[in-house]
């Protein structure tokens, strides 16, 4: 059974390109094309695609409105195409909040100058989000699913052996929805600084930080080089850069990206520097995301005696990064998304 894809884009040119690229993959098939949001809603209903790729800028009805309507009717994993501008970021975050699973840059040249890599990325992205749909329920449902009681943790629930002096959270695909879920539970007077690493392009992190700041009681800002680590303040690693922690100065360092590190920002880098600076006083949480970034950093933290938690498979949009730490036996507790916040509260 090939993955059935519905392409939504008002540009005939892009419709055709996406169709060609997607159909090139033997396991994928474009079953329909919609030129605007309203058509998308109709075709999502009648064609029952496994995945929808959605443009934002369209006549008649824009992408976000369509995502909202589709998710309300019959949830389907949706991949948004967006421009990687600040404005585009705000819209994309709207779409993610409305239930879209992930996004890709519409400017294909930005993704890769090489068409083979581009195709590969698109295929992989579609495959991943389609797999998610078949293995469990859809994105927004994850947040509202009844709690999975009793986390299969090895550590004793309750207070950890060390007092936490830093909370670090890493996330990728699905993070824009999962992170607020966790952060919202934290009070304004959270007694330790928080550092967030979310895989995101440049421009996006600023909009994301602003959005988080509005949604949460803790203060959230996009980290700037030299920012102080303060209790009750969450710093979000800026996209396209690397964030390192300097315990002694109590500040963060923002470094330009390096070709050797795949992710910008990288969870490994931030976690690793946290391990070096804070030793055993760190609580690290790995949330939903593709790949295995964070695993090595978590291992370093673990080796120093810090605590590592990871999100469970059921509540993840993509169970990749949490799976990596769980498999490597680094994780102390596997928690459902909605339990993570309350569990952190217990440690305050």
């Amino acid at each position: 059974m090939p993955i059935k894809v519905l392409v939504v884009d008002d540009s005939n040119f892009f419709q055709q390109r996406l169709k060609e690229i997607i159909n090139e993959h033997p396991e994928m098939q474009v079953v329909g094309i919609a030129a605007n949001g309203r058509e998308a809603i109709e075709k999502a209903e009648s064609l029952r695609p496994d995945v929808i790729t959605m443009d934002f800028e369209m006549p008649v009805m824009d992408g976000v409105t369509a995502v909202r309507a589709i998710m309300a009717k019959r949830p389907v994993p949706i991949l948004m195409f967006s421009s990687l501008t600040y404005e585009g970021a705000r819209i994309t975050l709207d779409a993610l909040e409305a239930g879209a699973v992930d996004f890709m840059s519409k400017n294909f040249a930005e993704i890769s100058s090489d068409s083979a890599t581009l195709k590969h990325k698109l295929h992989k992205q579609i495959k991943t989000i389609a797999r998610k749909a078949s293995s469990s329920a859809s994105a927004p449902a994850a947040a509202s699913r009844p709690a999975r009681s009793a986390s299969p943790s090895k550590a004793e629930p309750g207070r950890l052996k060390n007092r936490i002096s830093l909370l670090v959270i890493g996330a990728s695909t699905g993070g824009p929805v999962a992170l607020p879920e966790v952060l919202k539970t934290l009070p304004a007077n959270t007694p330790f600084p928080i550092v967030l690493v979310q895989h995101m392009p440049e421009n996006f992190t600023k909009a994301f930080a602003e959005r988080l700041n509005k949604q949460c009681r803790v203060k959230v800002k996009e980290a700037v080089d030299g920012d102080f680590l303060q209790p009750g303040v969450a710093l979000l690693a800026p996209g396209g850069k690397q964030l390192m922690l300097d315990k002694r100065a109590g500040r963060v360092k923002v470094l330009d990206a390096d070709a050797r590190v795949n992710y910008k920002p990288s969870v490994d880098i931030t976690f690793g520097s946290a391990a070096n600076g804070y030793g055993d006083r760190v609580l690290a949480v790995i949330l939903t995301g593709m790949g295995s970034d964070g695993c090595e950093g978590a291992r370093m933290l673990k080796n120093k005696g810090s605590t590592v938690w990871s999100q469970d498979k059921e509540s993840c949009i993509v169970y990749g990064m949490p799976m990596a730490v769980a498999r490597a036996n680094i994780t102390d507790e596997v928690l459902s998304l909605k339990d993570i916040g309350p569990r952190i509260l217990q440690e305050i």
Partner: protein
Amino acid sequence: MGFGDDEDILQDFLVEAGEILELLSEQLVDLEQRPDDTDLLNAIFRGFHTVKGGAGFLQLNAMVDCCHVTENLFDILRNGKREVTSELMDVVLQALDAVNLQFEQISQREELTPADASLIASLERLVSLEDLNDSAPAAAPAAAVEAVADTEAAVPEGDITDAEFESLLDAISDEGGAAAPAAKPAPAEEPVAAAGGGDDISEDEFEKLLDQLHGKGNAPAPAATPAPAPAPAPAPAASGGDPDGISESEFDDLLDQLHGKGNGPGRTEPSAPEPSSPAPAAAGGGGETITEDEFDALLDQLHGKGKISGDAGTAAKAAAPAAAEKPAAAPPKAAPAPKAKPPAATAKPKAKAPSADAQKPPAARAARDGGGQQANVAAGETTVRVDTQRLDDIMNMVGELVLVRNRLVRLGLKSSDEDLSKAVNNLDVVTADLQSSVMKTRMQPIKKVFGRFPRVVRDLARNLKKEINLELVGEDTDLDKNLVEALADPLVHLVRNSVDHGIELPANREAAGKPRIGKIILAAEQEGDHILLSITDDGGGMDPDKLRAIAVSKGVLDEDAAARLPDSEAFSLIFAPGFSTKEEISDVSGRGVGMDVVKTKITQLNGSIEIQSAMGEGTRIIIKVPLTLAIMPTLMIMVGRQTFALPLVSVNEIFHMDLRETNIVDSQECVTIREKAIPIFHLKRWLVNGAAFEESPEEAHVVIVSVGTQRVGFVVDQLIGQEEVVIKPLGKMLQGTPGMAGATITGDGTIALILDVPSMLKRYSG
């Protein structure tokens, strides 16, 4: 450059972008009338957005840049952060022109010229909510520099450290075997090395962290897949490196700790062939493109093989940082590395090549097979794009079919077989339907031509300081594609003429008691098998006496003839070659060639053109063209023993009359019809060999034909009837014969020449 070479994709883009750009020019002019229309602003934004998207896909960067700023500007406009002003519109229209120019270049397969830097700068100033008139020179360079990209910011520091980098390279080459793998990552890491000089401490720290992460073995991961971005941004910005970072010894301790669990990089057996095959991937990681599949496989391998492979990774990874590190730092770390490198280097090509080969062909094949199937499955689309050449071919064949039908119909009439005539009748009906269906496929709304006028009128009016509203009526009228294209130029000329000569300056209009804003109506409607186009202005109108006087002074007419010329025909004088009423020649119109060309062009389309004008009230120019060019309804006539076809468009009426009652006026034979003298000509004298001086018969058929605003009568021997013919061009030898438009095959299988009335009159009656 992935897609740029693919002709089909480019064509797709050209078609779509072409449509959008045409629409944009209309929408932009509309916008000036309705600056607050959010839907319109959204639509324009989307237009630029879509063109940018396509251009980005094809990596037409010059076009992307121009569309990008314009798109941003409209984003600001639609969010109400800026008002639409005429000055702003001027800039936006310039931007559209620039994109249009680039579009032309793309369709000509020429190199793109980037949009004018000052244009981009003005757009950027508008985007950043600055005033256009603000000290431009100060702002412009700033904006330009910004646009050039941040990467250049690092260049100045680079100068010093380039040397360092070179020496580093040298140092590395000295290590012999290590040179090869090290050289590859080098170019990609240049920025890192270059910037390293500026900020040792934090850079080192970062490197260490990387090492630590790598040290665990699994993590060649981050290094193995280079970021797809073409050039990594230069490393550490000037952030003041705190001196109290983690010290070297602390780091070593940590490494020892980590290695205590593993086996330590120094002790790795270089001979272990299995684990070292993934390792080179890490070594080359800086510069090689490793697909994610390979990366995944590598990860699996690493995970699966546990500690051993992890250590091999450690050894290999040392090669990567070694390339970037300063010579001083290199020795301790590089020490264990050389051992691991040689096997690594050899393993690398082996490991990479087969995997790449093995994956690609099946994948490609599968894709192709899949693609074929899916093309069939994915129905549900309701439109197909067809090359117009194919439509032309079909039209041609239908034309042939029409001829065969004509012939069969003629034969059917002769036969008394009822079945045959029934079948022929059926064929007749079906052919007619087919013909009109095929014609419809070639139909395009006249909007395609009309669309450009709002812009033309706007620009011209702004130039001439006139105020003009253009109204478009019947934009959806369909006509043959070829006609749409052929009409474009003449119409532009006529509209320009109306703006330039027709509409008066606002002050003059007010003085004449007219509204300040002039009005031009461009209308199209279908009338039977014709299209009527009219351009109506409420300007000053034309003065027939002035036209007569000019005609005399230019030697187009003598005074007598001019005096006798009725007003309606006097207006047509503007179509005479070398006729211009404007004393000064503007760059808009008035060179006196244009109207002549317009007339010729319309005539070529088997159309007619007529002018109505009233002093002080305005002028109306009416163009009548057939719906299609390929099939022409004609009146078949016989002259001598030859068949000729007269375009039915120009035929007004037919009389059977007594030729003894003709009068000679101005040495021209005339008949009087409804109290109007109409010149008559004997076609036989012109077209039949040796009949030039034949006596005229007592009675004959006279076909009244209109030519421009005149009417003339042709005396013919015999009338055959009305027939639709397909025009075939004359052979090379006969091409350009005056009076002949082409040839066709008639229903009885003979060849008939199609007459070109205006050129025939010019040739014979003059």
